[in-house]
């Protein structure tokens, strides 16, 4: 059996709740596609090698590095970026509110990745205590070192304190 290798590939996926079809060069990463083709610049290009976590997005609810994921690997999947966290009316997600109330950032560059990682960390059941949050959020680097506030925000959101 032979396979047909293609240099342009059509991919159907769901992005922030909207179904769309795109045609990409296979080497296009999810991160580059979001930023350059779609214009969603929330996911940041920090290290571009899977070391910093600023490009973290959700794929079918699981957090992943956008720089280590190809668009062609997302066929049929649901991608969520920071732009898709808030409600349709602009109401912030509880994790976003917790980050704001805990002052969980300084420069803000890592925040989109931190937010999506935090949403997943809580959904996975790993936001149980300080040590668990620090371990399960270790893939998101904050060079301003706002880690105590980020840890507090994740725990606050997990305990419902970001609810309105």
């Amino acid at each position, binding site marked *: *059996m*032979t*396979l047909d290798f*293609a240099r342009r590939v059509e991919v159907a996926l769901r992005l922030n709740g909207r179904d769309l079809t795109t045609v990409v060069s296979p080497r296009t990463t999810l991160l580059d596609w979001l930023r350059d083709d779609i214009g969603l610049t929330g996911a940041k290009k920090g290290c571009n090698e899977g070391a910093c*976590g600023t490009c973290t997005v959700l794929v079918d609810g699981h957090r992943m*590095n956008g720089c*280590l994921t190809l668009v062609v*690997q997302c066929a049929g999947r649901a991608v969520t970026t920071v732009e898709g966290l808030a409600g349709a009316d602009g109401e912030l997600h509880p994790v976003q509110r917790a980050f704001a109330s805990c002052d969980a950032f300084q420069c803000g560059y890592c925040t989109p990745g931190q937010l999506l990682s935090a949403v997943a960390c809580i959904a996975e059941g790993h936001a149980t205590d300080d040590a668990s949050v620090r371990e399960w959020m270790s893939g998101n680097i904050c060079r301003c070192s706002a880690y105590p506030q980020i840890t507090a925000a994740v725990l606050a959101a997990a305990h419902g304190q970001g609810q309105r």
Partner: protein
Amino acid sequence: MRDFAYARAGTAESAVGTLGDAGTSVIAGGTELLNWFRLGIAAADRVVDIGGLDELRGIDRDGDDLRIGALATLNEIGEHPLVTEMAGALASACLQAASAQVRNRATIGGNVLQRTRCPYFRAEEPLPWPCNKRDPGSGCTSLAGRHERQAIFGWTPDCVAVQPSDPAVALAALDARAEVLGPAGPRTIPMREFHLTQREAAVLGEPMRENRLGPDELITGYRLPASTDGQAYIKVRERASYEYALVSAAAAVRLAGARAAGAREQGAAGAREQRIAAARVALGSVAQRPWRLAGAEAELPGTPLTREALTPVIERAMADAVPLPQNGFKVTMARNAAVRALLAAGGAS
């Protein structure tokens, strides 16, 4: 990133059928391959995606074996109740690898095929210094330069790199077998023999070869024999999370007899009476393959489960270590990691 043509495999056989062409690479999670393309480490023109193959998924008990599909992610393995029960050292090794988001992409099939973290190797092309892995015959910059994180076993002057995988150390310690599919059909490779030291590769006449997987073969899964041994994986690193190991150790321990009734009341005295009936132990990040301490395993039955008793046994088993000028500390660190792993596996820590 390097440009390439792409196809999705519909079956494992169809993927293997494309690998006869040396310009074709497999992608599963992609956490290594994409960075290889960025750095110029891989030179494939075609990529075959096995990520949609349900036949390579799953974690199941099969008779007396634990079977793990090649596409199981490190997070899936690390948190799976069957793995926690039957192969605790592997679960622990998976969860101590990389970060939560990398572990959601990285598969156990690809993990053992990761390349060394040697910084001279992991540089962007054009390479500004010699590296025999990148440019065979050019030399090894690490040997004359920085090499504090490199091998203490099995290296040659051509290359002093170590294999950085955490799960591979547990798989080797637990006598796992890789299930492999090639053009001639399936075969298995014991994980304690899967990787090659530089010295072993030189004996084969292929000094830069890193493992026994053929270029046209695909890892489809792993089989681990059932075991009720206590298990542990100890990873020593420069920060508490999301860092490669300086050294690591996986251990599985069966104690002689059950702990005597009343041992709890006797406290430390009861614990001191524990003796090992059988033990397996492997070191990580000390060579280009997981390093089973066969000499220690032969000597450990009957040994008390104490630091004082275990340390000289491990020391004797590591007597053939040949550290480089900057990494003598690894001999002591690996010895202590092995002792800690045995103590933890035996329930004494």
